[in-house]
């Protein structure tokens, strides 16, 4: 497998040695490069996902989707971004202006920090704490503070209802996300994302290795992740037919654009986590005993494996979204508290039992 840390160490040595930078200068330069990489990837994936969502949605509804702007509508999203940039940002008379302007900062920053937790390739990760999963859960829940602020500061009844629904829903489904991740930590014995991927590279993908409990955990994660992103049958916080746009009703122009960006990036992060924790991240498909096949699979770069799995999960989530009708808030909360939480607890014990008795592959 290609190790990306060769490039990062080379860059560090190049800056320190050839260019004669001091230690802090090299780190500063690298930080700026990392920041540029984060922004580029963030924008590229947001645009790719918005285009994909429009096309997938259109094909599910027997339409063509965007076709006019550019070949197959490829430039549609770019023109939409440009349109949002040139729209006026209206400040409401009744709203709490400070909180109203603060909310997009929280939402976008939370999604950007969680975005940089994803392991792209062997050695290609930005933030890699040894308590990675814990850190990921902690940062991702800051986003809900931004949503609640947006709803409350708008001084609009639609926004308030949307934000309250979103808050109740996101914090509830965080429990099952935590529980399913816990089950997989039991299996790998590490919380750092790079170590989780390395473990899956050596021992096989978690979903295969942990068989029944891992598959149950994956299914629970998909449902809970969909709810975390405020999507699919769980899009109550912004159901357009009853609440206009939910918590971002009063946001216009680029302020609305931030929520749009963060929503799609959260979808990508959710799918990326699913592929990292359950489907092996950058670890290629290995079949025990078939050395020739495994050799060929190792030729494919890890980043391609990661993106392939992630977009597979993204497609699953889009499929879910455009297939099921919207639920009610009481149905959503009882689904979480009466079904998913007990199931994921039992599943955690089952997984722990499998690990303790050595019943996994």
């Amino acid at each position, binding site marked *: 497998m290609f190790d990306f840390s060769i490039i990062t160490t080379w860059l560090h040595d190049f800056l320190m040695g050839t260019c004669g930078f001091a230690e802090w200068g090299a780190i500063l330069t690298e*930080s700026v490069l*990392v*920041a540029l990489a*984060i*922004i580029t990837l963030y924008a590229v994936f947001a645009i790719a996902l918005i285009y994909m969502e429009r096309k997938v949605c259109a094909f599910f509804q027997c339409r063509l989707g965007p076709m006019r702007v550019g070949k197959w509508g490829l430039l549609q999203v770019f023109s939409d971004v440009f349109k949002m*940039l*040139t729209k*006026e*940002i*209206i*400040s*409401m*008379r*009744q709203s709490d202006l400070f909180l109203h302007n603060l909310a*997009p*900062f929280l939402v*976008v*920053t939370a*999604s*950007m*920090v969680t*975005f*940089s937790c994803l392991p792209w390739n062997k050695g290609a990760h930005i933030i890699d704490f040894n308590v990675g999963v814990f850190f990921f859960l902690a940062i991702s829940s800051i986003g809900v503070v931004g949503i609640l602020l947006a709803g*409350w500061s708008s*001084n*609009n*009844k*639609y*926004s*308030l209802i949307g934000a309250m*629904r979103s*808050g*109740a829903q996101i*914090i*509830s489904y965080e*429990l099952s996300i*935590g529980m399913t991740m*816990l*089950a997989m*930590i*039991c299996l790998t*014995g590490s*919380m750092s994302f790079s170590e989780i991927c390395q473990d899956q590279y050596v021992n096989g993908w978690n979903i295969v290795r942990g068989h029944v409990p891992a598959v149950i955990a994956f299914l629970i994660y998909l449902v809970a992740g969909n709810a975390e992103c405020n999507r699919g049958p769980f899009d109550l916080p912004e159901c357009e037919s009853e609440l*206009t746009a939910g918590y971002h009703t009063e946001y216009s*122009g*680029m*302020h609305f654009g*931030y929520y749009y960006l963060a929503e799609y990036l959260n979808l990508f992060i959710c799918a990326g986590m699913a592929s990292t924790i359950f489907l092996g991240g950058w670890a290629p498909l290995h079949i025990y005993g078939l050395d020739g096949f495994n050799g060929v699979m190792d030729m494919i770069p890890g980043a391609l494996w990661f993106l392939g799995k992630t977009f597979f999960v993204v497609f699953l989530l889009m499929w879910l979204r455009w297939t099921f009708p919207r639920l009610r*808030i009481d149905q959503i*909360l009882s689904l979480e*508290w*009466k079904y998913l*939480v*007990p199931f994921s*607890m039992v599943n955690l*014990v089952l997984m*722990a039992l499998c*690990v*303790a*008795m050595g019943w996994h592959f």
Partner: protein
Amino acid sequence: MNFTLFVTALLTGLAFVGVVTILAKLISPRSYNAQKEEAYECGIPTRGRSWMQFRIGYYLFAILFLMFDVETMFLFPWAVVMRSLGPAGLISVLFFLFILVLGLAYAWRKGALKWQ
């Protein structure tokens, strides 16, 4: 290095929103209209404030979440060393999980999970 990069990502997020907002404010047109600054609620003038008492149901779930989340946090360190602890560790954590389930069952029995 991890903390440096964490701060980098944090600052990137903040700077991104700040810079793009300033850019959008610079290039976007501006016009004043008294109607434009009203709250958007079906086109009818809004009645009353929206900063008001809200239904308690949402807060009940938030309180339940707080309890469960704090308790699941204690399970993370156990999950990491699970393999080396073996069956003995599993049995001792089962008591903890039992108390957790008991809490959920109590809330369920008391009707806290019912939406009214």
